[in-house]
């Protein structure tokens, strides 16, 4: 049965779009049929991260307003044949999206895909509430930093009250994905620990993605990091997270600093 998964955070710049692309590609590689949907109307970027920016003809708003059919707006990934993108509009604003329009699109996507990943815009306004509205599950992307954790807490409150599932007395299944984790700073006690974040948010952990140049490199060339360099630490962390979404039990690995003791002694400040 199709699952609608919203990737959300409240705060901007924490890695929602990167995570949507990486997890979407990883789920597709496991054999599922996946669509990633950009809800960031007016500031779309998922097309760029997926490397499909030049192939956008119709978008979410066109479909919601009946200007285009869903099949005309969906873009098939060039690398994976069971991965698709539904881009957001770049020219319209968030008010062009209506609850009813989103409901119809999600319904239609449910009949065609195994996974529907909704990339939420930052904030708690209309775009973000519509992105989570029909979700079965949610990934709350959180950085180990006070403002991000505070916003995640707020978003968890919204997932528990403003979604269709919540209104029906059910619960959106929530997962915390910790991104931009810096092992060196964690070791020095300069960064909120994983345990601190999980205790404060009281939500299960889906994965820990280390801060990495690999992610920047993947976005430069327009490829999900899980496709661009499947062997790198962040891609492996995203792949594990995708398998956990599918119900597999995989031991959680906390990224550690790769430097050896002697290097640490000498190069501590450079870290």
């Amino acid at each position, binding site marked *: 049965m199709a699952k609608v998964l919203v990737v959300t955070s409240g705060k901007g710049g924490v890695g929602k779009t990167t995570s949507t692309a990486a997890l979407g590609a990883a789920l597709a590689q496991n054999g599922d049929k996946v669509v990633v949907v950009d809800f960031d109307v007016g500031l779309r970027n998922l097309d760029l991260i997926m490397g499909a920016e030049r192939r956008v003809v119709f978008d979410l708003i066109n479909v919601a307003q009946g200007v285009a059919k869903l099949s005309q707006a969906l873009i098939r990934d060039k690398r994976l044949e069971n991965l698709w993108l539904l881009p957001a509009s770049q020219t319209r604003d968030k008010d062009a999206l209506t609850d009813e329009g989103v409901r119809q699109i999600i319904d239609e996507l449910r009949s065609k895909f195994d996974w529907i990943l909704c990339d939420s815009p930052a904030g708690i306004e209309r775009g973000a509430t519509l992105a989570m509205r029909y979700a079965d599950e949610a990934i709350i992307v959180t950085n180990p930093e006070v403002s991000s954790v505070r916003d995640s*807490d707020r978003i968890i*409150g919204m997932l528990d009250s403003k979604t269709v599932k919540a209104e029906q007395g059910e619960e959106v299944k929530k997962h915390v994905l910790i991104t931009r984790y810096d092992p060196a700073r964690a070791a020095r006690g300069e960064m909120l620990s994983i345990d601190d974040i999980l205790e*404060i948010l009281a939500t299960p952990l889906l994965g820990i993605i280390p801060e990495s140049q690999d992610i920047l490199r993947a976005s430069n060339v327009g490829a999900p990091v899980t496709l661009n360099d499947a062997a790198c630490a962040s891609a492996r962390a995203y792949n594990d997270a995708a398998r956990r979404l599918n119900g597999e039990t995989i031991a959680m690995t906390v990224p550690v600093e790769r430097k050896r003791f002697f290097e640490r002694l*000498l190069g*501590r400040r450079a870290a």
Partner: protein
Amino acid sequence: MSINILRMFSRRTSSAPVARERLQILLAHERGQRGQADLLGILREEILAVVSRHVALDPEKVIVRMDRGKSVSTLEVDIEVPNDFDKRIAVAS
């Protein structure tokens, strides 16, 4: 480099525990407030509806306030009624 080594041995106080404590206090407060605005709005509407069935009220003079204490919270309902309200009931009935 000598500074680096010094740093290592001079137990630098880490900032993460401070972050954790600040967050816990802040979120305890914010979670308490969450939904409270709605709850008070609903209470106010319903109290107003019930009371105004019997007393002519100025909706502006109905104040509903909630105070959250550590162990007990109080709900305060303050309704100002006109002096001749009982006469109006007599007329109404």
